[in-house]
């Protein structure tokens, strides 16, 4: 296969996810070796979303903005594999709270997660996700590493997320082992650990979904970890 083409589409968001993408520093060069970046307004002068193999969509499409919805649809149409990159696109994050009269324009009031508007192939929650996630997803796509990608397509990693997912799936089901990974992953420090269990301060939760995704008991990528261990045994 020739080098896959890549596009990065930015909708309503704070740009933190885009910065996180670029925060790969020298690894960014590796990423450019893996894919041709055809469209990414921050680093390339292109105005139309071209046909590509993989697209990262960051941000939420505001329903009151025809432009935004059309851009999202176009991104979907033009790409084989669509990644909801970051909290705003995968769970709507902070946009969940933009009800009525908030930015960018007074009438812009609803920003659902993009999977309600188009089919999403992989969701990467986190506000923003660690830079390494961008590298890992692109590498897995290029190498066809389905073991890696399959977890990103599970419902709970995209959609309406919040700290309560930990209750619903993990704590309520007696799966939690009190490791603290959820509290570590939370960008707003909405989780404190009380008696070895996560306690969510709802006023601080922006519903990014990072806690649930990071929890070793939501999914455990056993096959991928075994591969990692093989690598670590050699070098």
């Amino acid at each position, binding site marked *: 296969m020739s080098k896959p083409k890549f596009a990065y589409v930015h909708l309503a968001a704070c740009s933190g996810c885009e910065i996180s993408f670029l925060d790969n520093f020298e690894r960014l060069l590796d990423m450019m070796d893996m894919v041709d970046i055809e469209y990414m307004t921050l680093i390339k002068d292109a105005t139309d979303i071209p046909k590509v193999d993989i697209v990262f969509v960051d941000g939420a499409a505001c329903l009151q903005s025809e432009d935004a919805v059309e851009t999202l649809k176009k991104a979907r149409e033009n790409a084989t594999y669509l990644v909801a990159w970051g909290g705003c696109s995968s769970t709507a994050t902070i946009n969940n709270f933009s009800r009525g009269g908030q930015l960018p324009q007074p009438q812009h009031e609803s920003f659902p997660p993009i999977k309600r508007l188009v089919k999403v192939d992989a969701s990467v929650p986190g506000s923003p996700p*660690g830079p390494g996630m961008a590298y890992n997803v692109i590498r897995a796509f290029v190498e066809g590493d389905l073991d890696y990608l399959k977890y990103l397509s599970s419902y709970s990693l995209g959609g309406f997320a919040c700290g309560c997912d930990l209750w619903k799936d993990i704590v309520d089901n007696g799966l939690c082992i009190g490791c603290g990974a959820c509290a570590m992953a939370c960008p707003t420090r909405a989780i404190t650990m009380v008696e070895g269990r996560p306690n969510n301060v709802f006023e601080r939760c922006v519903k990014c979904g990072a806690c649930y995704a990071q929890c070793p008991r939501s999914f455990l990528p056993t096959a991928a970890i075994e591969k*990692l261990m093989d690598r670590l045994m050699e070098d």
Partner: protein
Amino acid sequence: MAYQGFGKYKEVLSARSADEEIRNIAQDGGTTTALLCFALETGFIDGAVLTKKSSREWVPAQYVATTRDEILQSAKSVYALSPSLYRLKEATRERALSKVGYVGLPCQIEAVRKMQLYPFGARDIVESLALVIGIFCFENFYPESLKAIVEGLGEEPLEDVVRMRCASGKFRTEGEKGIIVPLKQASRYIQDGDRICPDLVSEWADISAGSVGSDPGWNTVFLRTKKGHDFFQQATGAGAIETKEISEEGLKALEKLAVAKKDRAKKHIAKREELGLYVTRDIYY
């Protein structure tokens, strides 16, 4: 001879700290403490995220250690939940450490490796992890459970305990009185999540250590990754660690426990699935 349930490793042996001061305060042979001290002295790490007993009632505290004295505070095992992964953020972001050591239980090592592959909320942490040491663990307790076992079943005030041990089917304390509670009885108080945990010997750590399998005062140590193996060699070469061969009987005893833990996990996962409950995707291996 090939054993079941140990995961992959390059070498397994018995080890202990060469430093008597460490051995005297440690749980068993003090291997983990000695490795951490050696790693700090040689600049292999610039700090470590650890757990210590924080109160007279054995409530665990998680902290970032950057000196030998601070490392020594973690020398004994606390058999209670310690969500220490949270402190990795403090170590890398607030304290700006770039070579962090981490000591955790098997389930926490699982979380660390998942984080390495899927750093959803783990910016800067992955690159900064220098050494991952895993402890053997069969099960773990809420702090309140410890109270129920030691004070309820054992009738000894927690404050009088100076060391606790889970070994050979017994939960024991050392201190004023010193109690012995059969683990079968104590196990009623474990956290439920442990029942589906398949890992006894921290199969995914760089180095894992525990007591089962070795003589009293010694640790059983698995050297797993190249980094862990090389670092351990360096520590023994420099005289920080003493080693000896591990016996076949020792390994067999450990194997029995490791397999029992996997069987328990398999059984409990099946039970939960039967009830139609959500079970961690792909947990069993």
